[in-house]
């Protein structure tokens, strides 16, 4: 018999997922059984409800949201400014509906409607709602903020004042002469630079540097390491002209000397919430960041001083950002997240002038009634059309002047929860959209998975590839399907399944149209449906790499499955949410290997090689001119594989889980390989934490590691 492991070690590597202000533990982390508490006597008033609710909260909610509503790594705080900003203008009825629809994430279990009322009363009471006497009901419609005593609310704000603005002053010109990043140098990066999230506009995550190659990679050694701020972190460093620009948790940006790791400047843009931001962008002499509260800010790349700021969307309505912008010919293009609420405003991609932040255009990812595609949402009023987030930065093509983005699925997650059917496609969700950079108009779209039903996004990076005369765009979403489309017309070209999936019974080889399994098509409220992959994705936010010399697309993949049950969501303005319970299990036939590295020939779409392991992958893949592909995993390993065979040629182990996007750069002709160790995240962290429980790692240790060959 093979290894026997007593699976008693519990990991806590789960992260946050915003569910209209309240979150699932780790974004899809689920507690399938609600815990009953001792039956309370019948309560007559609000105070008694709150007292009873305190026990229920402790038993069912505190594990994620903290005993004092202060939040944990598994769920956000539900008190103080953050809570009042989100819920102050709403009613208890809406708050109750949201909690009932989304919490606890694994299932309602034994919680009764009365229990939910009591939990709601407790949350309100803890936030200073102390002037209410009558017991809450499902239709209580007073404005929460009107009943909050300021003093009590202030007591909930336990966070110490955070730094703001420039906290470490310096100038990159003390290290190297500054050279503006021009349109030409951004479109065709110098081999020594990594000036954009995936290095080039086509999002290849490929460095042509070849000093480190298959013959000598075994000699890689640590050059320097830089400890980053703690918090949720899935970063992508930029490197330009020898300077490393890093986004830290909580919207903190640092500039480091690429040779030594010495800090040059640090800017706290705020809010200092420890939340994740995946990337930043550079243009001319500016570093441009989106913030977790949906602002767009430009800093002077030399000094870190703020140059301009603009609002992307109203954070008080739930809008946020977890990924930053790209810059195309002086236009800053940014996505948006937090679009699950039933409010008049929907998600969009926006463009701003990189020089001053002026808004240029917005493209709405949700088609409203009367607009093209507006008839794909059944009879739903516009206000109840939700989802379509663009929570991963896109790519762009200097030739066509189009920008390519993936969109997330409809919300809530299951058609029955959103009062729709499997026939209501919901444009432009779960699609590739090609948008004219100059005007913001839609050039074409291709909806990969209409009427998505399992929380499996197709939102991730679009990789642009030229093969002969063909102009192609590749994408790989949570269903694990690698899609190939013509990027001029959007026409479907081909697909391949990179991991086992059983959600679709048929994928039309000519059109790419998918047919859901019948039980998924007809899933009703509170019915469990079992499917693969899970919400951790066949692939998730970790970018794949295109290696031009070999014509291979190499993707970090994940092999897990889920059971999913829809919950009821009332069509009430201000409501909405995600509304499903989920459980996770190993993907059959994988021998328990969560991690899969797969290499695919972009011409034939055949799998050329794969490498599988127990630990899930938590970085994007990066390929190089040295015929190497680098990737990191949950078990703290950072490895170099032969790009043509998958053979492991070098590995090292870092301080905690390896997470982010590896990059490569050169200074004075010397090649460096950089990668971050980091923590936090949603389903890609939560799912391994309940399946591969024997894999443990420190719950701190965010850092940037830089490797090179000995001189």
């Amino acid at each position, binding site marked *: 018999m093979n290894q*026997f492991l*007593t*699976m008693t070690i519990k990991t806590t590597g789960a992260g946050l997922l915003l569910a209209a202000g309240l979150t699932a533990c780790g974004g899809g982390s689920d507690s399938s059984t609600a815990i009953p508490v001792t039956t309370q006597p019948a309560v007559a008033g609000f105070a008694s409800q709150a007292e009873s609710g305190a026990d229920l909260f402790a038993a069912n909610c505190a594990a994620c949201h903290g005993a004092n509503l202060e939040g944990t790594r598994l769920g956000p705080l539900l008190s103080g400014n953050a809570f009042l900003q989100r819920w102050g203008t709403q009613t208890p009825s809406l708050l109750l509906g949201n909690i009932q629809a989304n919490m606890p994430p694994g299932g309602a279990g034994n919680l009764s409607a009365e229990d939910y009322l009591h939990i709601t009363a407790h949350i309100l009471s803890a936030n200073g709602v102390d002037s209410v006497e009558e017991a809450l009901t499902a239709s209580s419609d007073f404005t929460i903020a009107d009943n909050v005593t300021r003093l009590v609310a202030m007591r909930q704000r336990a966070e110490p004042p955070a730094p703001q603005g420039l906290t470490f002053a310096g100038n990159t010109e003390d290290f190297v002469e500054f050279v503006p990043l021009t349109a030409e140098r951004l479109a065709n990066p110098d081999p020594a630079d990594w000036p954009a999230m995936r290095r080039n506009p086509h999002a290849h995550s490929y460095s042509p540097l070849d000093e480190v190659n298959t013959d000598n990679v075994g000699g890689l050694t640590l050059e320097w390491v830089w400890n980053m701020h703690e918090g949720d972190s899935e970063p992508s460093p930029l490197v330009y002209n020898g300077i490393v620009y890093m986004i830290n948790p909580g919207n903190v940006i640092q500039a480091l000397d690429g040779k030594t790791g010495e800090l040059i400047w640090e800017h706290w843009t705020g809010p200092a919430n420890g939340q994740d931001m995946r990337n930043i962008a550079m243009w001319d002499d500016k570093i441009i960041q989106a913030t977790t509260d949906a602002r767009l800010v430009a800093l002077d790349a030399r000094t870190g001083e703020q140059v301009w700021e603009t609002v992307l969307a109203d954070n008080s309505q739930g809008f946020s950002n977890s990924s930053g912008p790209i810059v195309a010919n002086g236009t800053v293009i940014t996505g948006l997240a937090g679009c699950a609420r039933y409010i008049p405003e929907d998600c969009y991609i926006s463009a701003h002038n990189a020089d001053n932040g002026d808004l240029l255009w917005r493209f709405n990812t949700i088609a409203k009634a009367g607009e093209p595609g507006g008839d794909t949402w059944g009879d739903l009023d516009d206000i109840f059309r939700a989802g379509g987030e663009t929570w991963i930065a896109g790519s762009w093509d200097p030739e066509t002047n189009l920008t390519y983005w993936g969109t997330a699925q409809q919300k809530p997650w299951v058609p029955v929860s959103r009062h729709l059917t499997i026939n209501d496609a919901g444009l432009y969700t779960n699609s590739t959209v090609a948008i004219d950079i100059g005007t913001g108009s839609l050039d074409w779209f291709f909806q990969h998975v209409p009427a998505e039903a399992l929380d499996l996004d197709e939102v991730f990076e679009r990789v642009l590839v030229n093969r002969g005369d063909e102009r192609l765009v590749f994408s790989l979403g949570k269903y694990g399907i690698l899609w190939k489309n013509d990027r001029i017309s959007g026409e479907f070209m081909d697909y391949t399944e990179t991991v086992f999936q059983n959600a679709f019974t048929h994928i039309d080889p000519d059109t790419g149209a998918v047919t859901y399994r019948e039980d998924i098509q007809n899933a009703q409220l509170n019915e469990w449906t079992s499917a693969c992959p899970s919400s951790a994705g066949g692939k998730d936010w970790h970018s794949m790499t295109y290696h031009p010399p070999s014509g291979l697309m190499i993707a970090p993949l994940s092999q897990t499955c889920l*059971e999913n049950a829809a919950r009821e969501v009332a069509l009430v303005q201000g409501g909405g949410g995600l509304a499903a319970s989920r459980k996770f299990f190993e993907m*059959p*036939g994988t*021998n328990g290997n969560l991690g899969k590295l797969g290499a695919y020939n972009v011409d034939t779409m055949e799998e050329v090689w794969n490498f599988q392991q127990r630990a899930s992958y938590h970085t994007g893949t990066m390929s190089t001119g040295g015929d190497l592909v680098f990737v990191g995993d949950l078990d703290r390993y950072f490895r170099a594989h032969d790009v043509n065979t998958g053979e492991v040629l070098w590995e090292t182990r870092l301080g905690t889980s390896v997470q982010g996007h590896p990059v490569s750069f050169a200074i004075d002709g010397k090649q460096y390989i950089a990668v971050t160790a980091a923590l936090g995240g949603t389903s890609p962290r939560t799912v391994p*934490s309940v*399946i591969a429980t024997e894999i443990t790692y420190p719950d701190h240790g965010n850092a940037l590691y830089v490797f090179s060959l000995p001189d």
Partner: protein
Amino acid sequence: MKNPGFRRSSLFGLLPKPFVQCAVLLLILLTTEISLAQEVYRARLSPMPTTPATVDEITGEGEVILTLNGNTLTVEGQFAGMSSAATGAHLHNGPLAQPGPVIHALTVDQSAAGTITATLELTAEQITELENNALYIQVHSENNAPGELRGWIFLRSHFDNL
């Protein structure tokens, strides 16, 4: 097709040619009979669907080797690390990653670690399901009556490179 790596042993050279031909034929027939009649399958047992709240309550791991000889399926497996004593184990019919009904009961040690055994007669339909990876094993326990460990059955060779 000639196998360039194949060489006759000296013993074959000393024996009469008809004898050698008969012996070779018999050997081929026997080998073919065995390979056609017997297939070895494997199931990796891992925890049933779980969440952060139940991950400490649904635990364990196991492996089951299943040998199909004709229509007789011999089941021999082990498990360990369950949260409580096993109360039963079954062979189920269900497509990959989709639960389905029980089709046979298995013998399981009534403990948190132990063995699973059975000798079963499969119908032709069940053999087809076995070949199509549409059978799985599920172990139930005192703490998890609906099931604590589960694993779909594949040809053992499926796992050779995993």
